[in-house]
């Protein structure tokens, strides 16, 4: 199988303001003109080779760099060191509340989400919109309402559906399944399986080893920005559970 994502020795750092400086006032009072920012390394020398059609679960405690890893692959963050090669159409990262503008209606948000993810063209517009609203199970009336009136579950349905109905080559999911009700979760699981069967690649961040085992064949475990395990998802779940013993 050909590699679609290849990370070689990738390290990522964030720029953080030193000494908790978040205002110009602090900046002047604490007189840190010389180096107001410091680098904080979040990912250390990650090597990763993901083949076409892989389904990879990413497990790890809070703050271990899971979301950062996804964002790096998505090209939202640039690695400080190392090389990243992607040979796949990148679709947006699916995270809770991503890109939802609360003042706008469901329809407007849908249109913007489709456009931003590069799935918008005049020809397919109506068809796509219909597919999305069908999948989200939101009524016409609900979709006309401003999304600030939505429940958390409805918001998740909306952002989820905008990505899921397009045929992504690479699906990246960052802990969003937990929000919808059981029915919607099931539907999403089915759709994820369908997408994988169509030959897409999946990167799935979760805190539930059970979900990872169910969806993914391969599992990766991160801790403090380092990859501590890469193997089958069953073994990854064991490693993950051991971290908390």
């Amino acid at each position: 199988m050909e590699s679609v994502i290849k990370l070689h020795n990738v390290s990522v750092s964030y720029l953080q303001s030193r000494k908790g400086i978040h205002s110009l006032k602090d900046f002047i009072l604490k007189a840190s003109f010389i180096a107001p920012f410091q680098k904080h390394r979040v990912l250390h020398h990650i090597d990763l080779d993901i083949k076409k059609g892989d389904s990879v679960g990413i497990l790890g405690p809070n703050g271990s760099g899971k979301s950062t890893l996804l964002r790096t692959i998505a090209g939202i963050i640039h690695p400080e060191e190392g090389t990243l090669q992607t040979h796949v159409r990148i679709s947006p990262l699916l995270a809770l509340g991503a890109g939802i503008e609360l003042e706008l209606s469901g329809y407007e948000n849908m249109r913007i989400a489709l456009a931003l993810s590069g799935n918008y063209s005049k020809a397919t517009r109506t068809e796509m919109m219909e597919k999305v609203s069908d999948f989200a199970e939101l009524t016409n009336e609900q979709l006309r309402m401003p999304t600030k009136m939505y429940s958390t579950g409805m918001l998740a349905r909306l952002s989820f559906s905008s990505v899921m109905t397009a045929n992504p080559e690479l699906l990246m999911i960052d802990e969003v399944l937990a929000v919808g009700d059981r029915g919607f979760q099931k539907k999403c699981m089915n759709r994820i399986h369908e997408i994988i069967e169509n030959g897409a690649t999946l990167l799935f961040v979760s805190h539930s080893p059970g979900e990872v085992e169910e969806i993914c064949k391969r599992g990766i475990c991160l801790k403090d920005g380092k990859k501590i395990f890469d193997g089958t998802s069953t073994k990854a779940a064991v490693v993950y559970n051991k971290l908390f013993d």
Partner: protein
Amino acid sequence: MFKILAMLGNRKYIIFFLIYKNLQLKYKHSALGFLWSLLHPFLYLLIFLTIFSHAFPSIQNYPLYVLSGLVFWIYFSGGTSALCLVFIKNAFLIKSFNIPKTFYPLTELGGELISFLLGLIPFMVIMYFMGLHITLNLLYLIPVILLFSIFIFSVGLILGSLNVFFRDVGILWNTINPAMFYLSPIAYPANMVPERFKFIVQYNPLYHFLKIIRNVFYDGTAPSLHYMVNCLVITTVTALIAFLIYRKIRNGFISNL
């Protein structure tokens, strides 16, 4: 340059929808919508016309003098304030979509520019009754507005980038912004300022822009070459500073938003 244009071409829907989103958000929750944006300059105009109309006898046609300055001032002040918040406002989009971060300030200003141009139409009608000369010289508005927009974009990019790290930059700008209104010769003539304080006016970039704007609107001539060059230099330097600051700290945006 060609690379940027090609990139813009590929993502024209993204640009279009981000501008659409900004305009929607701006006018969505008001019955009068766009008309509100005309109210602001109109109210100021009324105040200046009733209170100051006889205060500056040296200015012929004071209404036209004020209005031409006012309309552009509001574009500047609204544009920079909006750009100041642009990265914070779009934090969720920035964190989840792989699109160039410069698209956000670009489209934000795009929305502001559209409102400004739409607002310019009724105000040009008013200006016509105030004695605006309708000549081909008005075509000079195109380069003047373009240059002014690049200037606003650069100032806004500096503010917006710094505001990600230091959240009081926005608050500070809200204070400086009105102060700049009084420091710029919008409602009064520049030669009224006492000689020893003249430098304050002359070092104000807006002074130079107001000059070329009034050349077109008030004098009905082409912009003076001298001030046009000044504005070009001011814009280039500001854009360069903005670019350097933005490039230095853009990679830190994600962790600070």
